């Protein structure tokens, strides 16, 4: 809901005042909800990307951006990777590079794959019910 000038409505002061109040509240709510969903699904997205091949942090950020249009902050991703590692879902290893600056590669392990399978199942069920609901 945006406060656009409409040809069909008289643009009284009331219209703008009410429109502004309701529009700003709604947009604010949706905005917050979107960031909550993004935050909640980031681990799922990361695991899905790592399913295909092992990646280092910077590459992973690029991939997330290209697949999802989510501009993930580095300050969120690295702690998340660390948590996934601590939980035993991903492995991490340092790989020496010719440049002398090694890269830390993350890969999905058995436990990660199994967990991802469960997450995917839940995701699909949720999607089905939402589709049914919002029909």
């Amino acid at each position, binding site marked *: 809901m945006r406060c656009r000038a409409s040809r069909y409505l008289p643009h009284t002061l009331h219209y703008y005042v009410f429109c502004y109040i309701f529009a700003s509240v709604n947009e604010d709510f949706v905005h917050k909800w979107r960031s909550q969903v993004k935050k909640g699904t980031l681990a799922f997205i990361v695991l899905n990307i790592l399913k295909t091949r092992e990646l280092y942090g910077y590459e992973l950020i690029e991939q997330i951006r290209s697949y999802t249009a989510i501009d993930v902050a580095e300050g969120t991703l690295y*702690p998340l990777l660390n948590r996934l590692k601590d939980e035993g879902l991903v492995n991490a290893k340092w790989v020496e590079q010719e440049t002398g600056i090694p890269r830390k590669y993350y890969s999905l392990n058995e436990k990660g794959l199994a967990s991802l399978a469960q997450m995917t199942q839940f995701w699909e069920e949720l999607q089905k019910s939402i589709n049914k609901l919002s029909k």
Partner: protein
Amino acid sequence: MKMLTFNDKTANKIYQLYIKRVKKVSKGLPEEDKDDILMEINSHIYEAMQRVHVKEATEADKLLDILDRFGEPEDVLRPLIAEKKLRQATTTFNPVHIVKALALNVTNGVAYIIFSLLYLFLFTFVFVIGAKILYPKEVGLFFQDGSFYLLGIIDPKYRQKYGVEEVLGNWFIPAMLLVSVVFYVLTTLILRLVKRRRK
């Protein structure tokens, strides 16, 4: 670790300063974790410098942009360090690590405030040991008519008047030591459990 070098003097300075801040924030961690954090940030900066191409941007501009995206080391590393510190604390049983870990985690929930109180409570047992050494007659575990009355300090006059008896005698200090150690180990084990469940 191989440090990065920049042609631009300003960029070099910015980089050195940032690394210094990272080192400062991660100071209390085990060497392995410290190196890991530093190396990963170093690698991130290096890869980003290679990829980001902005027309007419100087090295310093690019670096500033990358670091800006990464965030302030103090903010970004705080949750990471709080978690690593907690793991270190609960595996080593080192009281210094525990105090630091709790201080870092205290903003992360009521549970850690409760743990801080538990450790503080534990300190009271240590305190009465010290008090017993200084005031052997006034300090002890006191019973009145066979039931628990007080653990701590009591005025001898009051003691006589109400028939309060000290029951542990010479065993007071060893008993308090034992209670402290058991309490300490138990609390730390519970902390480890809670930490595992919360992650």
